């Protein structure tokens, strides 16, 4: 692998590496939590580092992801879409992983760590419900108790996922504070964690929160990038794709796939929801244990994000993404609700794949920019982070509303 610097920014030795004991990604990251939680974060950091250095842990982690999770997920060449756009579109099919999204990678890692730390319970937050379903699944697999905090608004718009979690034996706790979406689910999960930390692990769903979560979750998700790197090389005569594109809420699927290409010359592009664009319209701040880019007012009161996609309805972004943006190694852009629905429909019609609204953000940008910001003839790898089953009822309503308009 090449170790050269890209566009004069630091090479792979510093980008997407070990953020050190205090979890710093440049000016971002850190551990801003009440003292009651600091010992748990320190314990988790030690447990993760010990496990991640243990070949036995990797063996168990990868065995579960293979036998149970359906990995490796394929890379699909989109022949008809590529022809239409004039660029070669490849999809990393995380939608085909068990539970229907990339979220399983992270929760299997954290559930194994929960056991390793001698804890018997997991709590989790969820927006769209994907991380909640994945957490409930991992808990069932490993015999852990699971409670999922979910904003009341999201409970309504993702009722099927609520039922899935309950079928899997988890308890879903609707969160009624604040905006009643993902941000408040995180608040409530952190509050619960303080009280139950002795026997409970907080299975955070993205590359956010206090150290070691952003680092640990990226490492658990890096399997996406490692697989994709080899799969792309096989399809592209040994080359890496010209662009690697992923949607970004907290940013775990993007971190996972970017980590496989950060040391190549591939352009890395994160696509945020237009109404939840922490890089595009946020400013630096501290929330949920991390320093990152946040939607907030001048005084520092956090603003609510707005997106049709519950999974991207979050006013912040993982601190490593804030750092990748600051260094210029990754670009962050956004997609609006309408073009996202279009992208979902176009992929369904041309390739026979119904993807999640979250993943459709990445596609929407590719559809918009093919021949523009994406030069004709480029190869573009899109991380298709999840399947769209959970969203079809909502998409039907949105399309019906559009017809009326």
């Amino acid at each position, binding site marked *: 692998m090449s170790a050269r610097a890209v566009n004069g920014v630091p090479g792979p030795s510093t980008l997407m590496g070990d953020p050190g004991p*205090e979890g710093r990604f440049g000016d971002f990251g*850190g*551990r*801003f*939590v*009440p*003292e*009651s*939680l*600091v*010992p*748990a974060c320190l314990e988790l950091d030690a447990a993760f580092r010990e496990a991640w250095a243990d070949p036995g842990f990797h063996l168990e982690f990868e065995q579960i992801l293979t036998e149970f999770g359906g990995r490796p997920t394929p890379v699909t060449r989109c022949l008809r879409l590529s022809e239409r756009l004039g660029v070669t579109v490849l999809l990393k099919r995380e939608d085909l992983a068990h539970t229907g999204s990339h979220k399983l990678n992270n929760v299997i890692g954290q559930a194994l760590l929960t056991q390793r730390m001698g804890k018997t319970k997991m709590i989790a937050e969820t927006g769209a419900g994907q991380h909640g379903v994945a957490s409930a699944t991992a808990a069932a697999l490993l015999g852990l108790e699971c409670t999922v905090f979910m904003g009341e608004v999201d409970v309504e718009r993702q009722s099927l996922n609520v039922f899935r979690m309950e079928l899997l034996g988890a308890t879903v706790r609707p969160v009624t*504070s*604040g905006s009643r979406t993902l*941000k*408040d689910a995180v*608040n409530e999960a*952190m*509050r619960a964690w*303080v*009280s*139950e*930390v*002795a026997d409970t692990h907080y299975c955070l769903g993205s590359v956010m929160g206090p150290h070691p979560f952003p680092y640990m979750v990226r490492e658990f998700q890096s399997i996406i990038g490692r697989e994709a790197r080899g799969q792309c090389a096989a399809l592209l005569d040994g080359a890496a794709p010209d662009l690697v594109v992923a949607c970004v809420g907290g940013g775990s699927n993007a971190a996972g796939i970017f980590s496989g290409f950060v040391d190549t010359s591939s352009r890395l592009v994160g696509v945020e929801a237009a109404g939840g664009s922490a890089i595009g319209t946020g400013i*630096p*701040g*501290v*929330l*949920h*244990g991390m*320093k990152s880019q*946040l939607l*907030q007012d*001048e*005084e*520092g*009161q*956090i603003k609510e994000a707005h997106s049709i996609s519950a999974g991207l309805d979050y006013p912040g972004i993982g601190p490593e993404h804030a750092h990748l943006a600051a260094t210029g190694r990754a670009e962050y852009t956004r997609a609006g609700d309408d073009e996202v629905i279009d992208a979902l429909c176009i992929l369904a019609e041309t390739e026979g794949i119904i993807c999640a609204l979250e993943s459709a953000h990445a596609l929407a940008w590719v559809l918009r920019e093919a021949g523009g910001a994406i030069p004709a003839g480029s190869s573009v790898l899109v991380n298709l982070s999840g399947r769209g089953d959970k969203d079809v009822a909502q998409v039907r309503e949105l399309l019906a509303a559009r017809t009326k308009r």
Partner: protein
Amino acid sequence: MSGLLATSPAPGGGLEPGALEQHLRARRASGAKLLVPYLMAGMTPDWLATLEAVVAAGADAVEVGIPFSDPVMDGPVIQDAALASLAAGTTPESVLAALGEADIDVPLAVMTYYNLIFRAGHRRMARSLAAAGVAAAIVPDLSLEELGPWAEEAGDAGVETVLLVAPSTSEARTAAICARSRGFVYAVARMGITGERADIGDAAAEVVAKIRRATDTPALVGVGVSTPEQATAVCAHADGVVVGSALVRRLLAGEGPEGAARFVGELRSAIDDG
């Protein structure tokens, strides 16, 4: 403000105790147990009158909350107070302007979350607090590892930073925290968020014992202390108590300055009679 808070700053958070710690040490030396009520600035139109009333009713110092949109250390009562205050248009600036005009003859500590300090800028916030006559700041999500940049500016401005020790904090960490805590050391009574509890549990006594082994800075117990009986029990080993949600709940229920004074008076009598 009274002359009490006009002590010269201790640059860099040096060895000379600040106004809050001097006052609490003096009160302790006189044999008193320390009572520090908490209220949320701006939560009711008459919050300043409430502040004056709780001081008149015997508070040794008052913790004044500056509302933040996402208070992860706080339970529903203080969350509601924060939302009410934000809805009324409260900002850090409006709180400090009001406190700067107020005539309060005990030290004040503001309690808020780090993002408001970070956004304002460490130096600007530290100087604004000092200018408003605020003696100290309590920032529960600013951990020891992240404390440095704020503590330096706060120290330079003569603002004390009160740090928290939790039941989960190790002995070694307790020593490190106590070495840098100014004003007092906040002993978190239980693993959990703020809010009233039916019983106070054994953890508080252990946290206070840990703090005592590390420092002679006053140790005050908070988080969950709700009744005069609990305050009395806690003061059997601690130097004093912080009472928040139990007071804030009364204010949310519309009891006003009089109700606040009555409750703080009951707490005062209970710990004095201990």
